[in-house]
């Protein structure tokens, strides 16, 4: 199923979930937790990526279109998130090239400046895509109890979601499982 086509269809019909509806109906009371039209937990969200080791500045759509997407939601102030970094690194090394693999913090620049963020990233040996979600657009659908791992299949459906510390084996086997099924 091509998600883009479905979204375009939804917008043209003026379905409440679509952005087109805002123009027609004004700001709706807007149920944030409703599923998007194609059964995803939310419409794809564009995340700002930052320049850091293994990461370029730019944007990344979550879930990524057409690939399996693995997201690590974290905060630099979260101790377990620090503890989680080695396992993430191992997983990134093993399967990072086969999927969209990204760590995303909900901290804006006031809470963690670019320098603070990249210092933290290097301290814990981050070497894959790094992004920010300062307005919590993405994280609001998953929780605030970081670290949270979210794994989407190629169609953007959430196949795994878990907060707390995970081993690299766990992360890798989950990713490989979804890759195999895709």
């Amino acid at each position, binding site marked *: 199923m091509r998600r883009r086509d479905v979204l375009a269809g939804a917008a043209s019909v003026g379905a409440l979930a679509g952005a087109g509806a805002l123009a027609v109906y004004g700001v709706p009371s807007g149920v*944030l*937790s409703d599923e998007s039209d194609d059964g995803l937990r939310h419409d794809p969200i564009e995340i700002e990526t930052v320049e850091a080791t293994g990461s370029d500045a730019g944007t990344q759509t979550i879930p990524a279109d057409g690939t399996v997407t693995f997201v690590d939601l974290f*905060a630099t102030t*979260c101790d377990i998130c620090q503890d989680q970094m080695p396992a993430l690194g191992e997983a990134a090394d093993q399967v990072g090239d086969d999927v969209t693999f990204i760590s995303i913090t909900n*901290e804006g620049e006031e*809470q963690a400046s670019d320098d603070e963020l990249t210092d933290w990233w290097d301290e814990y040996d981050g070497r894959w895509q790094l992004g920010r979600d300062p307005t919590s657009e993405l994280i609001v659908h998953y929780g*605030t109890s970081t670290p949270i791992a979210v794994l989407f299949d190629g169609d953007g459906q959430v196949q795994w979601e878990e907060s707390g510390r995970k081993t690299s084996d766990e992360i890798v086997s989950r990713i490989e499982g979804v890759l195999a099924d895709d």
Partner: protein
Amino acid sequence: MKRRSYLGAMTAAGITGVAGCLGDGVGDILSSDGTDTTLDPPEQSRGDPIHPIHGDEFPTVSLPDPLRDEEISLEQFEGDRAYMMTFIYTSCTEDCATLVRLLSEVQSDAAERGYEDDIAFLAMTFDPETDGPEELREYGETNGADIEADNWHFLRPESNEEALRLINDDIGAPADLENAEQNHEEHGDEDSDHDDHGGNDDADDGEQDDGSDDSDHGDDHDDGEHDHGDGDDHDGSDADHGSEGVHYYTMFLVNDRGIVERSYPNVTGDGEENRPASIIDNVRTVVE
């Protein structure tokens, strides 16, 4: 502890029909079950815990806001705004931080959608002896809260003893200080604590306590909130996230009539009802 269920005395029949036309103020007085809440009861029953749940009056306590140096009485919000209340301490860097972050996400939504004057965010420390105004300020800022906003209040009881009594007895959301040494001394034999707090066995999330009313809290959850200390569980290495098990970090959403709309007894846990998006939807509905 008395928990009074408040059945709305509103004349339901005549008003319901025009709720849509009159818009704000009327729509949120009535809900389909005729009680004084906007939201319908939650899908998952909370069983019969000791803490206030949907439809109950929230205890009206009065506590200092140390950053503004003023006294905040929960009663002052009646007729003014809804509020969300939770319990933290700054040495708790994981789940308590999550609680503050969660409140800050609702706070951001409120600012974005213009309902910031219809809601207040109350974070009460239960380690006031460690958490002075500066500690609280930093904790709030680190975790993304807009502490300068009028709707944010840190609340700081006079003493740890008062704080724990408030939480455990008055409110019934059992809590314990993981890292505080004094707590280990205060609590002796585990069994005697169970006698004292037997009533709190049901205080945790009804869906997780399978009616094991007399069970040891230690069985039910790990280093989460329980109202007695066993020295074993509280060494330095067992941070509040623990190794496994659930953590009972509670948050309340109370409407502007002082009635609980939602209790979130394990709000840092997984589950659709705990997602910020769901909670934000609840809040938006309550304030509209």
